[in-house]
Every structure is written in structure tokens, then in C-alpha cells.
């Protein structure tokens, strides 16, 4: 179990200024869909973008607060 703002905090610590939206997939607060908009992704392929998110969430994933995440990553100009 993890709250949305704690989860978002982890992402924004790794990617300052990122716009993060979180959806609880199963109502159990441990399976999430996370959408991250950040220019840190510029020039990075999909795999490396997702690796950034996994590294940011390494701790809560290792200790089980997060069981699964589905990730969407975009730069600012990709959302236009």
C-alpha cells in the first residue's frame, strides 16, 4: 500500500518538475497506472524512459508497497 502523493513524491524526486498522474488499477493501492510528463525523457527511447521510472520507484517496489505499475511516459511536446 502506498498513497498517491508519496508515490508521486518518489517520481518527482528523480524527475524534478515532472507532471505525474496516478490511477489505482485495483483499488488495493498497490497496482498503479502512472502517467509521467517530463522533458527528462527527451532523446530517450521507451525502455530507458521506463527504466527512469523503475529506478525512481525502486524502494517502494522492493519493499512491496507497490506490486505492479503500468507506465506511460511523454515529453511536454508529445502531449500536444
Amino acid at each position, binding site marked *: 500500500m502506498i498513497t498517491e502523493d508519496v508515490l508521486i513524491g518518489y517520481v518527482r524526486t528523480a524527475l524534478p518538475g515532472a507532471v505525474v498522474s496516478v490511477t489505482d488499477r485495483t483499488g488495493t493501492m498497490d497496482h498503479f497506472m502512472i502517467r509521467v510528463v517530463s522533458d527528462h525523457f527527451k532523446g530517450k527511447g*521507451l*525502455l530507458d524512459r*521506463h*527504466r527512469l521510472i*523503475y529506478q525512481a520507484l*525502486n524502494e517502494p*517496489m522492493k519493499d512491496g508497497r507497490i506490486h*505492479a*505499475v*503500468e*507506465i*506511460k511516459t511523454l515529453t511536454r511536446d508529445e502531449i500536444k
Partner: protein
Amino acid sequence: MSDSIQTIEGTIKKEIQENPILIYGKGTKEAPRCGFTLETIQFFEKYGHPYTVIDVLNDMPKREVLSKMTNWPTLPKVFIGGEFYGDTDILDEMEKKGEVKPLLDRVFQKK
């Protein structure tokens, strides 16, 4: 004496080379034990190419070696033509950009 890291790495490298589409996941093709593994199976069913599912649910040493090799902490892990492609989060995005079919056609043409 559990397999050494080198033996496990060797096994993985062989499996990756021998299977054009390879899914390391939780459970088997007939009995997937995790939603994401099932989702990945359904993804490849659409394309009609043969694919292999290797169940690593209870093989922690192999899962750890796989995570280190790919710098990717989760399952399932997909390899196509010997290359790592993450999971359906990645493949769905690639599919939207029309990148999956040509990749699979290229991989299966070489066979």
C-alpha cells in the same frame, strides 16, 4: 549447490537466441499466473507467430540474473530476435507507431 551466475547467464543467452519471441513470465502459456503475463501472451497471439513462455515464477536466482542483465526489475520480460523489449507497456506503444509487425516479419524472415 545452486547454479552459478555464469551457468544461469549461459542458459538465458541460449534461450534468447533459440526463441525468436521469448516471454519470461509467471506461469505457463496454458496456465499464466499473472495478468501481465497473460496480457503479453494475448499480445503475441494476434500476430500468429510462434512464441515461447518460460515460467520463472519460482526461480528467484534466474529472475535476479535476468533483472541485472536487462536493468529491468519486473516480469514479464520479452525478447524478440534476441533483443530485449520490456513488456506490453513498451510493445503497445510500439504497436501504435506500427513498429511491431515489421519487426516480427524481419525476425521470422531470417528463420
